[in-house]
């Protein structure tokens, strides 16, 4: 009985489905940038998101641990370069997040 008391009302069920890992603004920015490009390096993401080196590193670690992003070593003009890209799991999670957010905002609509 207690569990049904604590459960969200049916109207707001969609909120519970939001991926908290992506929902954090800085991580959402990182995910959004990596979603629209094939891959980018650390410096490019730093400039685009406006995050500091430490901040970006810490968020990257969390996303990498969740399997949302992967670190790829590529050779660019014969030099090894570290590129970051979304994994298939990350892409699916980001799409699902967008879907959930649209649903939530739709549910919260006052129209």
């Amino acid at each position, binding site marked *: 009985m207690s569990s049904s008391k604590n459960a969200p009302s049916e109207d707001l069920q969609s909120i519970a489905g939001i991926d908290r890992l992506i929902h954090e*603004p800085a991580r959402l920015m990182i995910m959004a*940038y990596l979603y*629209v*490009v094939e891959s*980018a*390096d650390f410096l490019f993401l730093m400039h685009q998101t406006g995050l500091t*080196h430490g901040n970006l590193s810490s968020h990257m*670690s969390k996303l990498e641990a969740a399997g949302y992003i992967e670190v790829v070593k590529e050779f660019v003009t014969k030099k090894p370069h570290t590129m970051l890209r979304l994994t298939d799991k990350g892409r699916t999670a980001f799409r699902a997040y967008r879907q959930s957010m649209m649903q939530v905002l739709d549910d919260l609509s006052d129209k």
Partner: protein
Amino acid sequence: MIEKINLKEIEKKAWTSTFEDGITDIGIGLILVVSTICQMFDDVRFYLYALFIVPALFITAAKKYITTPRIGLVKFSRERNKKRYMLFLVMTTAIVFLLILTTKGLLQKLPMTPLIVGSIVFIICSSIAYFLNFNRMYIYAVLFTLSFALNEITIANTGVIASGAYAWLISAIILIVIGFVYLVRFLKKYPLPVKEVSDVSHN
């Protein structure tokens, strides 16, 4: 996150950031300088075509040694590459059309030749602007078309091919100056990172 996040705008912002360095402007300016030289020394034009390697080398080297170390490296999506292929297709069609007109001698037979060629130049430049989201190129398209018209008018009035070359040189100087302004702003905005951040040693 009530604020609307437009993914297309994010991609466009990332893409256009690669034009913030002014390198492309300077590169196109250098192409026009070489064109001016080729027109000025028309009799040895064939040998001077080799000079077109200079702007190509400049753009490649500047992107590698100035831009990438400052803003980082990014690989864009397939959608963006499709736009590049479309641009390549439009430019190739326009250039082949122009070559056919020139080699078959049709250009001389057609009325208002400068207008036709000027329109082709405008279409090529506008296509670059449209497909690459390189908005400054629309202004350059107008500038090139005006230079072309000025070039043709001067040649028609003087009868000397080299006399119209200055028209391209004016455009070249304008482009190089604009490019340098962008480059200086870029260098101030993106200084070389003190810390090695290209490697993700985030543990």
